[in-house]
């Protein structure tokens, strides 16, 4: 597993992951095509997204075979993004409520897209 030797792995694993990525992408497209809504839709989108991202990082980008020092240096800092998401969703909610409070409900009449 010495990284200085380069990352050499049997071809089979790439074909497997490639196939899985196709399958999961098809599933996520089906979430929209079958018009799932609410919690079911959001949890399916997130599950498929994280599984796909995990396979790409772990196998295609070889993170699974790197040493732990590199894994932690790259994969830990994105935790701050989760904190940022939390802060900004509070901010988004607050702005929304303030807008409703001061400007009232939206009177926007949406048009359908033409194809």
């Amino acid at each position, binding site marked *: 597993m010495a990284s200085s030797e380069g990352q*050499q792995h049997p071809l089979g694993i790439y074909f497997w992951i490639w196939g899985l990525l196709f399958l999961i992408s098809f599933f996520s497209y089906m979430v*929209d095509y079958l018009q799932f809504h609410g919690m079911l839709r959001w949890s399916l989108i997130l599950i498929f997204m994280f599984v796909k991202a995990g396979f790409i990082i772990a196998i295609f980008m*070889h993170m699974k075979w790197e040493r732990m020092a590199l894994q932690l240096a790259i994969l830990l800092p994105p935790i701050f993004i989760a904190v940022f998401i939390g802060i900004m969703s509070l901010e988004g909610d607050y702005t929304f409520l303030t807008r409703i409070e001061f400007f009232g409900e939206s009177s926007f009449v*949406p048009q359908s897209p033409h194809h």
Partner: protein
Amino acid sequence: MSEAAMTNTGGVLPGGLGGVTSDFSADKQSFHVPWGKAMMWIFLLSDTFIFSCFLISYMTVRMSTADPWPLPSEVFALSFGGDPIPLILIAIMTFVLITSSGTMALAVNMGYRKDRNKTFWLMVATAALGATFVGMQAFEWTKLIVDEGVRPWGNPMGAAQFGSSFFMITGFHGMHVSAGVIYLLWVAFRVKNGFYEKRGGNYEIVEIAGLYWHFVDLVWVFIFAFFYLW
């Protein structure tokens, strides 16, 4: 995952958390990978933060607008003569990008096997698929701007912030794909003309270019989930 590894001088490095301590307290280098690869990873980490900022600001404006958000499923539907099929162009773009990720992974493998011809053609195929993706994106932008009247400051289908978020996020991603196509072709032609043979036959550069390309695919996974499906 991280067992003991050999150093260049033949010594043995400890694995696990003890390995982290020993790597970061090393005199010479912390990451036992070629420096180019470590730098690419650090660049990708910073790029992660850039794309996160875009997606988080998109989340914030979408949560805070009182107007209805345009339905991506309808906006990005495409009709081939019959009823419009929801999100079909985006689905095809996703499959094109995943296919290119697969060919890139194979190119990296062939590079380490020093099979220059196969590496070259797999990288050219990857770049061609990337260019196809950008072409489809140009089509999508044209359709949205000309037919649907989407502008960064408003659109007839819902909240004004839809346009600015869309152009910013997909535009920045498309720019990354375009840069990647040029980068891949550059490396591919150097593989072909034997440039790396003169430098000791080291094909790490293919893996480094591959890391960038997989990252572009990775970002698309998140854009697809949050912008198109949510």
